């Protein structure tokens, strides 16, 4: 009897607000705040100041923001970044999911296959840029001879606007699909098997099982993976810098490159801060939406189980 009462009291934990979770949460919050609060305020203040000769010389109010919003290059950079992120993350997610499903079964050499598949993301992004620049190079790269061997015209990938952009997407997909693969693999393997087995026993085909049963359960992990990858993709820098420097023209000039140049090469730190803070605000809105979606997914799963 006493046992049952204790169990009853215990089972009400989810509704009770206890002190323990705050202790578990606090260290992380402190760590996060320590690295973000001051930089955020510093950035906001910088965006309101005028920079000359590499230092702040006076209050600029919203001038920096005005200058940025009138800057056609800034909008162009945003457009390029948007195209790049949507394209790259979509392809990476689909490929990553396919690979995760393939590899999640029990295979021989599973360990080596998994490590082999994640190798691209273990290389420093700068080196990734360098290697692909060699691969794409017109006279000594591998891509040109490959195309001509297939009877196609040699593309000179980095020398033309569209091909350079596509080439960049290829590099990103090559480098980061492994990440999606990794996260989704963990997710797939974390799925409870009973509902899936039950569905199969009921006669559902592989596609039905996947779309109706696996995908909903995977939604939280999928959303997290996509959100994280999207944030990182928006900040892609090293590879692009080495590969094309943002060219040809502005075909691959992502906002990260333009922001970096503005802050550190043109010494317009205030304008760069205005650019990046605007981007941050925009991204925050997107992320809040993503979190709402995710919360609903989590509760959706709860009610099913």
């Amino acid at each position, binding site marked *: 009897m006493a046992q049952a009462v204790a169990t009853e009291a215990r089972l009400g*934990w*989810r509704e009770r607000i206890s002190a323990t979770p705050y202790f*578990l949460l606090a260290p992380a919050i402190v760590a996060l705040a320590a690295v973000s609060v001051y930089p955020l305020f510093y*950035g906001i203040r910088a965006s309101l100041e005028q920079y000359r000769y590499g230092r702040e010389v006076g209050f600029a109010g919203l001038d920096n923001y005005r200058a940025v919003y009138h800057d056609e290059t800034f909008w162009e950079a945003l457009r390029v970044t948007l195209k790049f992120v949507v394209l790259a993350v979509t392809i990476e997610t689909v490929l990553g999911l396919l690979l995760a499903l393939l590899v999640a079964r029990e295979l021989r050499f599973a360990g080596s296959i998994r490590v082999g598949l994640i190798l691209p993301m273990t290389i420093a992004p700068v080196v990734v840029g360098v290697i692909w620049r060699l691969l794409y190079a017109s006279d000594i790269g591998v891509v040109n001879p490959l195309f001509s061997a297939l009877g196609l015209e040699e593309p000179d990938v980095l020398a033309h606007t569209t091909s350079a952009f596509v080439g960049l997407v290829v590099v990103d997909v090559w480098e980061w699909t492994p990440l999606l693969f990794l996260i989704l693999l963990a997710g797939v393997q974390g799925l*409870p098997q009973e509902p899936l087995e039950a569905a199969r026993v009921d006669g559902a085909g592989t596609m039905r099982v996947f779309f109706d049963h696996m995908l909903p359960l995977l939604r939280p992990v999928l959303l997290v993976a996509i959100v994280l990858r999207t944030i990182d993709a928006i900040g892609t820098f090293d590879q692009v810098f080495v590969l094309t420097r943002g060219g040809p023209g502005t075909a691959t000039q992502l906002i*990260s490159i333009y922001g970096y140049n503005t802050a550190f090469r043109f010494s317009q730190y205030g304008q760069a801060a205005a650019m990046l803070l605007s981007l941050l605000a925009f991204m925050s809105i997107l*992320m809040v939406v993503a979190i709402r979606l995710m919360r609903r997914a989590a509760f959706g799963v709860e009610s099913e189980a």
Partner: protein
Amino acid sequence: MRSAAPRIGLYSLLVGILLLTLFPFWWMIVTSLKRPVDIFAGVALWPQETTLDNYRVLFEQHHFRAFLVNSITIVAVSVGISLVLGTLAAYALTRFRLRLGLNDSALVGSLLVRMLPAILLVIPLYIVLSKYQLLDTRLGLILVYAGLNTSFVVWLMQSFLDEIPREIEEAALVDGDSRLSALRRVVLPLAAPGIAATAIFSVITTYNDFLLALTLTSTPDAQTVPVGVSTLIGKIQIEWGPMAAAGVVGALPIVIFALIVQRHFVRGLTLGAVK
């Protein structure tokens, strides 16, 4: 029972994908063994004349040993810290409904930290570290990375922990466990693949961070591998051979780490799978 054909198809597909994935890696290794004059001489799948000069240059002229040591130390400690902090926080966020909508705001907050562009971080962090004499020190970088990594550890782990049904812990609690030991004995093993994935991602992200390490360090006392790699990019010229060698050497610690951890990619238990 599955027939042989789909199996073969599956393996061929995987082999094909592996080849595509690994070819640039191979190219990097080959390039690292070529002399500078051969790198641009033409397309060669294997160097006409192999040389270890690029590696020699890397270690003798470019302090690469120091960079490796710094990187490994900094990454190990900061990732360790952030894994602990982040997992505990994620656990709190998924298992409890907190006051003031803290669940949502904590998640948004940690994501916000993740979204802060490095460009905005470098100068203020430079100023802060300078004030506490932590510039050009390993400790300084460790603290910065520990803080930044915690953001996505929280995010990743909360989704993996979410997958684990609450009933398991409840049973353990009923059996007399405290919350923390329930976490340790029950939840963590189940979350092992998630932790492994998070660990690898944290290690890679921290190891390859470029801008922060670049700004917050100035000598091989604390400079990391990416900083070392960047010194191979001059104002107008790249040292291609040593750069490829740096890519190979730089990737080794992570590959080794991945090999060690990859056992945990697979759940060590069968979750009622029926074959």
